[in-house]
């Protein structure tokens, strides 16, 4: 028989009573999301390792202040995002490129001529290669774009949850997501043949 999973509230109560094994469960339940954010925001592997530990130590020390206004995972993701932001600020790394003329093309009309016919890559591209190509194009995006794309498409979080994590207004978040996807699509289509992708 399947044992019922403890709720966030039950886990938090246990941790606050000194049951550290409950904190282990919290880590296991949320580390996928935490790692996703850290890997998109931070490039250096050592820094990633340090930040992932720092996040959970912060969570542990702040747990008594959790107000149940959001899911525990969203709250932990917010701490993760803010910790990464602080790290990037210290290293003077921009969380997103400044928006200039790029802003207009989100609204540009789909042209009759799609950029698929002017391409070079004629060879067969396997599923694995295709995934690697997309992975490397995602990697070229700014930390913020990479993070929101991952949270929306991979983690399947709602706009509301992502807005809470990133502290962005929902409208701005949607706009950034539009830009990130368009940039990805344009980069892929200008560098690779449509049939290959």
């Amino acid at each position, binding site marked *: 028989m399947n044992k019922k999973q403890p709720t966030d509230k039950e886990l938090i109560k246990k941790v606050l009573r000194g049951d550290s094994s409950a904190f282990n469960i919290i880590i296991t339940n949320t580390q996928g999301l935490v790692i996703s954010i850290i890997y998109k925001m931070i490039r250096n592997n050592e820094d990633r390792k340090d930040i992932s530990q720092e996040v959970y130590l912060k969570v542990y020390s702040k747990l008594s202040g959790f107000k149940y206004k959001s899911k525990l995972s969203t709250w932990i993701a917010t701490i993760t995002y803010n910790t990464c932001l602080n790290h990037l600020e210290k290293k003077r790394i921009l969380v997103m490129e400044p928006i200039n003329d790029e802003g207009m093309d989100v609204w540009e009309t789909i042209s009759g001529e799609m950029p698929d016919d002017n391409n070079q890559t004629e060879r067969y591209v396997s599923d694995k290669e295709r995934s690697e190509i997309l992975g490397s194009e995602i990697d070229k995006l700014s930390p913020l774009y990479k993070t929101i794309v991952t949270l929306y498409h*991979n983690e399947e979080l709602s706009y509301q949850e992502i807005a809470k994590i990133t502290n962005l207004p929902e409208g701005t978040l949607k706009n950034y997501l539009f830009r990130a996807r368009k940039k990805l699509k344009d980069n892929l289509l200008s560098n690779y043949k449509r049939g290959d992708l």
Partner: protein
Amino acid sequence: MKKEHLKENEIQEYVFDFRNCNYSIIQHIDNCNTCKKAVTDYTLLSEGIKTQPEPLLEYDLAEMVMAKLPAVEKKPKREYNSSGLVALILGIIGATIYLFKNNISTLVKLNDIATYLIISIGAIIAVLWIADIVKSHNKKINSIYLQH
């Protein structure tokens, strides 16, 4: 139905936010191969992102964090320090009152509003001051524990 090709944001709205999508956009896409192609591009892109492999950890994060938890669990010591600090401040205030009891009793005997006003303002300032000292003390202690 829209005659001209759709805008990028409308295409994305169709793919990612279909429920809020305008009917004229849906109608246009049904009848336009160019925009249909753009829809396919975004659909494929979304599927591609979803199938991206998740990062693999080469270390046991839970184990590493759990090993560091006892350092944070020294919280009771911090509470002891806070109460010690509060006791010290109250002691200083008490000693001050004791040393100047004659002056204070003269002031109280005057029994006018200005005296009570001065005493109550002084008491409020003292309480706020103590609270501020305890708060910043706790903050510093917390950050020290987190660093270790």
